[in-house]
Each structure stands twice: as C-alpha cells, then as structure tokens.
C-alpha cells in the first residue's frame, strides 16, 4: 500500500512521527548528557560536538565517562568506537530500503550521520508505505527534527544544570544511566539482553581490578561469554 505519494504528504508524515516520542526522548536524554558534560568540567563545544558528531547516547557517555576516569586518548576512542558498533548493522539494513528506487550517491555518506535508533526504527516501519522516490525525504525531515531536539536538549542541559537546585541537577545526571538502560533494554532481542546482563557485574569487577581497561575487558570477556551462552541456549532450543 502506498499511503504517501506526494512530497507534502511525506513531509507531514515525517513531522507527525518525529514530534512526540522521538523528539521528547532525545530532548530529555540529551539534557542529561549536556548536564553531565557540564558537571564533568568539560567545555560546551565538546558537548555539542559529541551530540552532533557521535549522535548516539552510549558512545557519547562512553566518551565523557572514560575521559573523566582518566583513560588515555587511544583507549577512550577505542571504547567509543566499540560502543557504537551497532551502527554498522543498522546502516546495512537501512540503506537498501531507503535507496530502493535510486542509485547510491555520495550524499549517503553525509545522510548516514543523522541515523540514530529513532530514525532507523521509524524508517523501517514507514518506508514500505512511502513511495520509493520519497523515502529519502521522509528520513531527512524526520532526522533533522530529531537532531534539532537532541542539540537543543544538550544546550539546555549544559547551561541549565548550574541553575537548578542540587538534587534536581543530580537527578539530571542520574538520568543518563537510567535512560541508557531502558533504551537498550527496549531493543528486545535476547542476544543483546544476555550481553547487557553478563556485562554489568563484569563492569564493576574489572573497574576494581583494572580501572584503565575496565570497559574494554568487560566488552571482550563479557561479550565472548554472552556469545557462548547465547549459542548454547539457541542450540538447546533448536535441539528440543
């Protein structure tokens, strides 16, 4: 079914989808991020650059947390890159669907920067009902709204945190791990849940034994254990 065959209808659809849950979520989560950057004593430019340049809360938090923990630049960058590995399969699933009617273009390399879990999920859901030549339009409108909300949230959080009573300011910072946990738990796939749950205690343990390498060790050891555990569970299920 092609519900949206005109450019203006697609614009409206994208607006309607983006205003509401995605924008509010991004505004709120990036407010938390902005306040964390401020309270960590880091400059405003870094907050904005991380939001627009990384554009994924997990990687942004990894950047600030690992830097404040005193890790060397190399390990911080490696950690951030690993925290964002999910972008590869997301893009691989997304691009062919968005570009079904047109050849690949260099613009794809710019457009992909705006992809986040929100625009990814909205695109996969809506593309089948949007005229193929208009899908890119939907994505751009949706993603620009999301990115604006996220950037605004970063600004509000960075400058607002200092003006608030201490408990509320602390609440904004506390929002980071909580947001992060429910957004990831919302992925609803068993492999990712297993890896999250296996990783949690290891994160604490490695932080106490080897604070410099804690996240990388957690990732490699926890990820490998989780993979084995998942394969085992899958094997048992298919055998029964």
């Amino acid at each position, binding site marked *: 079914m092609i519900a949206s065959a005109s450019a203006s209808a697609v614009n409206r659809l994208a607006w309607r989808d983006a205003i509401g849950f995605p924008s509010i*979520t991004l505004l709120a989560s990036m407010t938390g991020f902005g306040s964390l950057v401020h309270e960590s004593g880091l400059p405003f430019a870094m907050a904005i650059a991380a939001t627009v340049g990384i554009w994924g809360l997990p990687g942004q938090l990894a950047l600030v947390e690992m830097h404040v923990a005193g890790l060397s630049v190399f390990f911080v960058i490696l950690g951030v890159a690993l925290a964002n590995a999910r972008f590869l399969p997301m893009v691989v699933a997304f691009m062919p669907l968005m570009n079904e009617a047109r050849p690949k273009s260099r613009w794809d390399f710019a457009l992909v920067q705006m992809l986040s879990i929100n625009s990814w999920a909205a695109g996969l859901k809506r593309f089948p009902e949007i005229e193929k030549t208009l899908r890119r339009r939907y994505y751009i409108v949706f993603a620009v709204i999301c990115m604006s909300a996220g950037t605004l949230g970063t600004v509000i959080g960075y400058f607002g945190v200092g003006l608030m009573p201490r*408990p509320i300011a602390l609440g904004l910072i506390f929002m980071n791990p909580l947001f992060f946990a429910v957004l990831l738990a919302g992925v609803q796939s068993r*492999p990712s849940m297993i890896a999250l749950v296996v990783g949690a205690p*290891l994160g*604490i343990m490695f932080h106490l034994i080897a604070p410099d390498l804690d*996240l990388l060790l957690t990732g490699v050891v926890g990820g490998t254990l*989780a993979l084995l555990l998942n394969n085992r569970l899958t094997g048992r299920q298919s055998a029964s």
Partner: protein
Amino acid sequence: MNESSAVALLLLTGGAIVGTYLWRGAGVMFAARIKSDSPVFQWVTFVSYAMLGGLIARMVILPIGPLMETPLLCRALAFVIGVGVFFGGGRRVLPAVFVGVATFILLVSFF
C-alpha cells in the same frame, strides 16, 4: 582551561567522532555486500552490548564525578524502580525514566 588541554580534548572528541563514523561509513559502503549476521560481526555486537552493560552498572554503583556525593542506596533503589516501571509498565521509556529520576531526586533530597 589551558591551551594544551583544549587541543587534547579536540583530538579526543574528533577521534571519537571519526571512530563512530567509521561504522556508519562502512555500512554505506558495504550495504549490499556485507552480511551483518556473520560470526565476526555477531561477536562485535556482543562485545558492544556487554561493554554498555558494564558501563551502566559502573555509572550506577561506582560513579565518577558528581554522583559520587549521593548514597549508593539512593542510586541503586531509584535505578531498580525505574527499570521495574519499564518492564512492568509495558516497556514505555518516558514514564520509566520519569519515575526513576523523580524517585532519585526525592531520595537525594531527604537523605
């Protein structure tokens, strides 16, 4: 902030942006040719989620920075309540975060 630390932060943030973009760019480049369910990639996904699980746990239990001044009990309780609202309330993100953060603010104000 002095000049050298500004340069260091610039390098750090720039590197983190490039490190993230590599995944996106590779996705565009190989969109048609890569199997995202290959064993190596599957492993990288598990590593990424385990790392994030570890980071969340550390931020709640052994925070660095301003949350250090709050009692562990407040953080743990508010976190558990927030995640509980998420799973108990139909997996809706915003109510869960709102309840969790509100609980945290109340606990911190009174203890």
